[in-house]
């Protein structure tokens, strides 16, 4: 039984106060948000197990800084969905705009459509699975975690990458500075199989290529000065 919050009737402040309180109370309830009309910061700052379905499309920073909650958006999301997520699962049935999962520390972001530019920028441990394509500058300065892309990647993938792992099934338009293709070892196949299963992705781990940091920018070297 899901409780409905209709944003045609209820202000954003009340929606978030209600959701944050329910999450904190560990009530294990389910909520449905309707008439979102592209509003910003819907269901952000949740801290506890809670199931939230957002019907329609959202603006910026939906599910921002999520902890533990399972949030599903039936439409598309604006910039910065699940930014700085700590844990939990955020699922987007449609497309995600730029900065999806930016700086995320943990949890799983499952994007069924495409993601725009800067997907997983500066990610710090989050797992992101994109069933479609991703835009340019994705995984810029990505530090930790896994970015899985079933489609293609745009320009400058993984520029200035640290230790995040990138798996792309389709084409990569170009790799950013210090990002290289790497060998797919058994542990990567295993990790990928798990993420694909969790997100209901119709793909085999063996179809992906792995990209990671060449680690040439880790300590300043005059011969790599052009790359900075």
């Amino acid at each position: 039984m899901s409780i409905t919050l209709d944003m045609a009737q209820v202000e954003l402040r009340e929606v978030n106060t209600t959701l944050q309180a329910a999450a904190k109370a560990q009530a294990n309830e389910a909520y449905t948000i309707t008439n979102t009309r592209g509003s910003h910061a819907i269901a952000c700052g949740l801290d506890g197990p809670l199931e939230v379905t957002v019907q329609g499309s959202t603006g910026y920073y939906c599910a921002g800084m999520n902890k533990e909650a399972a949030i599903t958006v039936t439409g598309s999301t604006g910039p910065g969905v699940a930014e700085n997520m700590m844990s939990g699962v955020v699922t987007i049935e449609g497309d995600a705009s730029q900065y999806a999962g930016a700086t995320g520390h943990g949890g799983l972001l499952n994007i069924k459509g495409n993601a725009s530019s800067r997907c997983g920028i500066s990610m710090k441990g989050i797992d992101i699975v994109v069933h479609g394509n991703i835009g340019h500058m994705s995984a810029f300065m990505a530090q930790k975690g896994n970015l899985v892309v079933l489609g293609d990647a745009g320009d400058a993938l993984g520029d200035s990458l640290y230790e995040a792992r990138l798996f792309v099934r389709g084409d990569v338009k170009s790799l950013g500075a210090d990002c290289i293709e790497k060998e797919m070892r058994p542990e990567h196949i295993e990790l990928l199989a798990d993420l694909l299963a969790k997100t209901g992705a119709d793909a085999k781990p063996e179809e992906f290529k792995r990209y990671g940091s060449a680690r040439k920018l880790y300590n300043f070297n005059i011969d790599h000065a052009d790359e900075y």
Partner: protein
Amino acid sequence: MDHTPNTMPRQSWTFSNETNSEIRRAAATGIYDIRGGGAKRRVPHFDDLLFLGASMSRYPLEGYREKCETSVTLGTRFAKKPIELKIPITIAGMSFGSLSGPAKEALGRGATMAGTSTTTGDGGMTEEERGHSEKLVYQYLPSRYGMNPDDLRRADAIEIVVGQGAKPGGGGMLLGQKITERVAGMRDLPEGIDQRSACRHPDWTGPDDLEIKILELREITNWEKPIYIKVGGARPYYDVALAVKAGADVVVLDGMQGGTAATQDVFIEHVGQPTLACIRPAVQALQDLGMHRKVQLIISGGIRTGADVAKALALGADAVSVGTAALVALGDNDPKWEAEYQKLGSTTGAYDDWHEGQDPAGITTQDPDLMARLDPEIAGRKLRNYLNVLTLECQTLARACGKSHVHNLEPEDLCALTMEAAAMAQVPLAGTNWYPGKPGF
């Protein structure tokens, strides 16, 4: 035989020995010079202003009996829980990582005893700091190292850092020596690597996006925390106006003398405006928007004395922030370490390689042996003493101008010693009623 006289060897002003040493260093290493601290060149500063004390036309307040209030409330525009400080002097953001844990603790102890706030930095919130700071401002930076909603809610205010005075528009590169296991863990980075920092936030660009970011931060923290926006002194009129339009409760404006942990020397010395030149345009922007004293203005960059504090307030700031001075109060660049500074190729007062992690004073380091040199309790007391002196000095000057609250100081209480300072601070040149650019002359 007659001796032909020689011309004395003449050093070039353009190619000075110092300049040539930098050319040789660049040629040898192939990397720009990275250092800590703020601009070292001489720029017009608060020293170039004087107060007009009361005598016949104005009446002074009695120095030790008649009250002169120093309290300030920050964040009265939107936040449910504004910050109330006993003194108009706060501690600027300095990261754990650039500073040691004990140094952060000492800042918290000193600030708390003096009745003011301290600020985190680019590296997350530590227990030392939160535990010892009664009021703690949590910086929200492009790197988002250690950023999490729990610390956001434990903070007393949130400071969104758009830029800093040492490097408006710049990111930077921090060499790896200080990325120890603990620092690396907090930042989700491998140990010992150089840290490249971004110049823009990862998930917004510009004030129209920032307004939405602020909405999100307020929603996550129940609209309780004051939101500060920190900008470097570059185009202060526009930047302050846009910070207000984006929804700031408080604007922090950091002039070019403001310090930094580590960035390119060329950035520190050649980008940004002197603190003195930033204040009037910033206040003008607030006044034009009807927001002066409603959105509070904190000025930083080169504040050293109570006179600096009083002058910044007189020009329209609500409070000031100290960073470098606080480190000196803790013991940074103390002559007692002169022999060790010499070993590092520096000298007392000039030591600025804070990023290298070898600070003899044990402040800007992660080396356990060096860190142990700083006793956070003693250093905290020194900081409290220093903050008390700044406050007393500021009050003394305010009383001499007849003010029962330091916020009642005004530009008309000042005159300038130089044309440059007169133009930048828009206060008359001493002995005249004119400053460059003043209409009607």
